């Protein structure tokens, strides 16, 4: 029953040109893009939480591929290390110890946290810098650090609390789904490194089918609420989970049950923007028209004389 059909191809030994780029953008922050001429096949990473052994090979592979390092960790009393995502650590295993009230079994729920690559990305919607956040037609949401201004609006727009702002270069960082690797026919580094194939990568359709098999298997083994996490509130994600308790995603270190872009962010980036600019324009226009209609409010000679009389009347 081993699902090894998603073994990633060997790394190419000759130069390969990226299979997609700028021309395949479907969304660009604070700006618009022309509709792309072609539609790439949607990709997805599937994380089967039930297969994860918590080895953190994915974290190591992520650091390795992105050529970043994190300081030696400190024990904060849990296995999570580092305890949270950082500007250098784009993925973190989150460990939860949970006693299942039905079976009285201790279940060790280990969820690999990181960017979910939402079909409707809140980070991109909130971003004020043109082109700093982009989405390709294959579903990958990526940051362009040259254009990032470090304002942190993406952090506020993200329904999963993923991006982190570097204190060093003041840019936002998160998982890229190894966009650079995917463009040359490779899968994400974490998927490549995962020893149990808990992380697999392929087209979104393949991943859904694979997930369906895994869910069936889990259900046959007593996890009657097993299911796929592909939240519709953000129009689906390009990183999906197979959960043994899909009815309670919060169990997995607070995974959002029904994630969606906050209505506050929608208001501030949507209607609020137009209403605000309209209000400013209206005030300026009213002033302009008022001046045209009434003309200047001038002091008359009579006013000056009255003031003179008042002043002299009192002082003489």
């Amino acid at each position, binding site marked *: 029953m081993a699902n090894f059909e998603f073994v990633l191809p060997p790394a190419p030994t000759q130069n390969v040109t990226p299979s997609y780029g700028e021309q395949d953008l479907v969304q660009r922050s604070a700006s618009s893009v022309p509709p792309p001429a072609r539609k790439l096949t949607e990709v997805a990473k599937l994380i089967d939480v039930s297969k994860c052994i918590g080895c953190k090979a994915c974290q190591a592979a992520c650091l390795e591929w992105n050529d970043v390092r994190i300081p030696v960790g400190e024990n904060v009393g849990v296995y999570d290390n580092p305890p949270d995502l950082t500007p250098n650590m784009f993925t973190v295993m989150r460990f939860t110890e949970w006693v299942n009230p039905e079976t009285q079994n201790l279940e060790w729920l280990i969820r690999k946290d990181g960017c979910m690559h939402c079909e409707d990305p809140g980070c991109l919607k909130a971003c004020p810098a043109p082109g700093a956040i982009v989405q390709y037609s294959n579903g990958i949401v990526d940051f362009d650090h040259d254009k990032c201004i*470090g304002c*942190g609006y993406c952090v506020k727009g993200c329904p999963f609390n993923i991006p982190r702002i570097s204190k060093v270069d003041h840019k936002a960082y998160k998982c890229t789904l190894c966009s650079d690797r995917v463009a040359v026919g490779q899968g994400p580094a974490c998927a490549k490194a995962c020893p149990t194939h808990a992380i697999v990568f392929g087209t979104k359709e393949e991943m859904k089918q694979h997930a369906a098999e895994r869910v069936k298997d889990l259900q046959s083994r007593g996890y009657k609420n097993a299911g796929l996490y592909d939240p519709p509130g953000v129009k689906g994600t390009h990183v999906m989970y197979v959960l043994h308790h899909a009815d309670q995603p919060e169990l997995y270190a607070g995974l959002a049950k029904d994630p969606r872009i906050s209505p*506050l962010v929608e208001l501030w980036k949507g209607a609020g923007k137009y209403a605000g600019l309209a*209000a400013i324009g209206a005030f300026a226009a009213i*002033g302009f028209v008022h001046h045209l209609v009434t003309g200047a409010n001038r002091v008359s000679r009579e006013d000056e004389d009255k003031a003179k009389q008042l002043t002299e009347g*009192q002082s003489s």
Partner: protein
Amino acid sequence: MSAYDVEPGDRIHPGDPVIVDRYTTGARINHWITAASLVLLALSGLALFAPSLFFLTALFGGGPTTRMIHPWIGVVLFVSFAGLFLRFWNANLWKAEDGTWLARLRDVITAQQDKLPDVGKYNAGQKIVFWAMSILIVVLILSGLASWDEYFSQYTTVEQKQIAILVHDIAAIAIICVWIVHLYAAIWVRGTLPAMVRGSVTGGWAWRHHRKWLRELVAGKN
């Protein structure tokens, strides 16, 4: 004995025309630092508010420097405005004639000066601008600190930051509208600008727009 709205430095110089000192040098410097900060904040803030205005970041040396400098200008504005507040709050207390003046807003905007009550150093419109600025600046500095991630990121949750930014946006739009009213009034009512530029107005201006204040100054001279 001086009235509530007669401020230090307010003085009459008889002549033709009569000249009335309205703002001290200190008050004017204080005002123009505040004014410059407010304009720079509006430009840098709008640049980050509306993608169509992102080009304004060029004025501040690009996106990252705009993001970095905006909160610092905010601190300058807050401190500077606090100075203005201490100078002007007393003369902006609400008085009986302000209600009458406001009720006759139609006569105000049609410049029917003779139908309006005599008012002190500030009319009801100016007082509303003063208090609106005061309240909005407090709202802006608080919501601004809550979203100033460089130093205060760890003190608020993501949801609190979302609320802070929405509040900051609404207050910023409101204060820009209040500022437009302030600026327009200073332009429409001719003879007003010299008050903040040279520090003085003509007696005729004071007679026409702030007659109660002028009478108090004349009476106070004895």
